[in-house]
């Protein structure tokens, strides 16, 4: 444990004692924390992270892994109101199977996630349950292909 990551390690330790074995520490670097959890625990973990002071979502996205047949959904939380946490970006990762791409929305914990989840929905076809506006945002109304950011969608002329 280097001197730069004292706060970060402390934060992860606190979460680990709270959630026991339900969260995995991916890595802890200066200013960066990444943990992973299961989709069922995501909401509880997110709530705990918010209560620590990470009050904004800076990014929410997904990555397609066709070989493992899963999507990796990531939330990146930042803190703007508490000075000592402002330098840290907190990433929460979870994986969901590709044949049942559904996950509970975090809209009631972080309202800032609203458009991000809509974007992930249209780009990957991941449905966020209980999201009030699970509809297209950026893609045209007449889009009838598979969601474009999936790996099996290839760009015209680049097969």
């Amino acid at each position, binding site marked *: 444990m280097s001197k730069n990551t004292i706060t970060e390690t402390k934060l992860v330790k606190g979460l680990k004692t709270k959630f026991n074995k339900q969260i995995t520490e991916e890595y802890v670097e200066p200013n960066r924390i990444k943990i992973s959890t299961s989709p069922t625990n995501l909401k509880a973990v997110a709530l705990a992270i918010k209560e620590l002071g990470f009050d904004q*979502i*800076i*990014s*929410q996205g997904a990555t*397609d892994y066709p070989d493992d047949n899963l999507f990796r959904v990531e939330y*990146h939380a930042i803190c*703007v*109101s508490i000075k000592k946490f402002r330098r840290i970006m907190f990433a929460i990762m979870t994986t969901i199977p590709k044949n049942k791409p559904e996950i509970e929305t975090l809209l009631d914990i972080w309202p800032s996630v609203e458009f991000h989840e809509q974007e992930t929905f249209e780009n990957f076809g991941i449905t966020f349950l209980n999201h009030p506006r699970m509809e297209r945002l950026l893609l045209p109304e007449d889009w009838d292909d598979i969601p474009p950011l999936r790996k099996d969608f290839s760009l015209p002329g680049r097969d």
Partner: protein
Amino acid sequence: MQVVDQGGDKMVLHVGPQHPGSGHFRIVITLDGDYIIDAKPDPGYVHRGAEKMAEYRTYIQNIPHLERPVIIDATGITLPYVLTAEKILDVEPPERAQYIRMIMAELNRIISHLYWLAIYGIFLGHSTMFMWPMGDRELFIDLAESIGGTRVTFSYVVPGGVRNDIPGGFKERALKTFQYFEKRIKEYEEIFFNNPLMQSRTVGIGILKKQNAVKLGITGPNLRASGINSDTRKDEPYCFYNKIRFDIPVYKEGDSYARCMVRLRELQQSMDIIRQVLDRMKPGPIKHVIRGVMRGEPGEAFVRTEAARGTMFYHIVSNGERFPYRVKISVPSFRNLIGMSHLLVGSRLADMPAIYWSLDYWPVEADK
């Protein structure tokens, strides 16, 4: 604009995508008399699929098309990409390159804020405030052009450093421009910011409270106008922002006027930063040359920087190939969009332009 009669007193008004203001964006407004009771943004008119295209290009080929979403602030959007790519490619740029990057980033911030100010002048029907910032913006474009080579799309920051060194005599020209522009800022204040007409249209209009700004994920100058002292250049310094002394302008009011004032003060602050950088800069190499094809280690990196509109975020996943496996861009305009519908609800229709453009929403950036 298209009007749908809802029956009764309510009326639905479609503003855009062709409207006198910033185009390429539609907002569906429901009106009760003169008051807006619902505002539903409809972005996506400039969605070009930059994230997907990035998966088909090498790290260096990605730079030109990733800066197109916000060519007013080209360095603001390419710098975080390059910083993320450098983490994956594991290269460290030389010291001088870092300083030149800061100069370009701050010049671009000024260019972007002046463009915003010019359009805001038009939105409030103040033609002089279109002409003055547009004219002064050309001076800063000249400075940036002498470094980057083109007027707006520089593609100047590359993994490992910057493309070329700054030209001789840049410091003198820059200081001369700053000296002139500092006088102009005072004139801007006199004719526009202290103008009672402008103030009556912006003071107390579209108030974004502190807790709402945090809750909705508002970023950049809009967040700082609501009384939160958060700026990535201070919070998590990149380049050499930790070696530079500067203050972040913060206003408590949270109204449209405060958002304007934050940007006006940032013009001054950016010039101060460039002055200090020019003093600290020493001659040296400007690029760490990477031989062969750039191939990242398998892994991922995420980086944020402070662009003109707020915090720009990149998340790149690499699987060791020439192309990135996934590039996720989170742009400030996209995150500020949620604030627009929040602010418009409850305000009058006539206040819409003043609120809308005070957020500095750039649709091309939000749509990517």
